[in-house]
């Protein structure tokens, strides 16, 4: 599958990865997915060793009444409308877990 060209946000996410927190990088990448696929919404569900199940909503927006029942969801990338790109989901989940781990090990990165 050929991903459409980005609008520069991917470069921004990569820049965040160099000097920002793991959490900020994950949100940047998630927002970039929304933009590139012209989605209405996106969320990530991950299992973090020290935190348990965690849900990230694009744009850091509240889940409100969680109409997608993400609080019950298995780890993965949840896109609205659905887009079937398994590798993207795997990479996003792995990167986000790694980001949480890095932030736990280096809290100063989250202070930047």
């Amino acid at each position, binding site marked *: 599958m050929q991903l459409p060209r980005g609008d520069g946000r991917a470069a921004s996410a990569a820049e965040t990865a160099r000097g*920002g*927190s793991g*959490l*900020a990088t994950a949100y940047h990448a998630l927002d970039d997915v929304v933009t590139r696929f012209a989605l209405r919404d996106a969320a990530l569900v991950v299992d973090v*060793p*020290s*935190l*348990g*199940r*965690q*849900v*990230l*909503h694009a744009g*850091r*927006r*509240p*889940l*409100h*009444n*969680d109409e997608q029942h*993400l*609080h*019950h969801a298995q780890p993965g990338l949840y896109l609205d409308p659905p887009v079937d790109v398994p590798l993207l989901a795997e990479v996003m989940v792995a990167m986000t877990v790694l980001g949480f*781990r890095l*932030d*736990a*090990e280096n*809290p100063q990165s*989250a*202070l*930047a």
Partner: protein
Amino acid sequence: MSLDALELELRGLPGVFAVGFAEAEGVTIVELQAGPDACDELARDATLLACSRLVQPLAVEIVRWGDGPPAAPESRLRVLDVTTDPAAGELAVHLARGDERAVGRASTAHGLLSVVEATVYAVRTFLPRLPYLPGWARTVETTPDRRFLVLASVTDPEARSHLRGAAEGGTPLEGAVRATLAALNRTISREL
């Protein structure tokens, strides 16, 4: 302190699985989604953290999901007293579990961190295998009626996990003891 740091601290509160932010008419709304293992003090802890990190006005909304069976009643450690001995340069934290008592002592050389140390040592009387080490503590606010809001952190170096708690007290020392217990209580309650 960045929004990332606040979000990470909020996600570190027991039971919290999602954090979101919104703005409405000049008010920052912090929404937490929490599972059945969230503690009763979640709203208070989250509000104290948010107030210490964000420019006000703000509101904290908690969405609780009550899946699963009711949680078992929790055992909690109680604060009995915090005493200082200036001549010896030492402070003592007195805790209780039911009728049992424990005292943790530490040098006063490290300010509020000494209180966290003494509290952790006292907790170890009940839980010798407690993996958490003292991290830091600081007073984040003093209220007009001279109550002290304190944040405290403890760290499990092996699991690389941090627990943070917030509490207030009549003195910074009392606030630091209560904040340390607020950080630990939910995790240790199953073993008490």
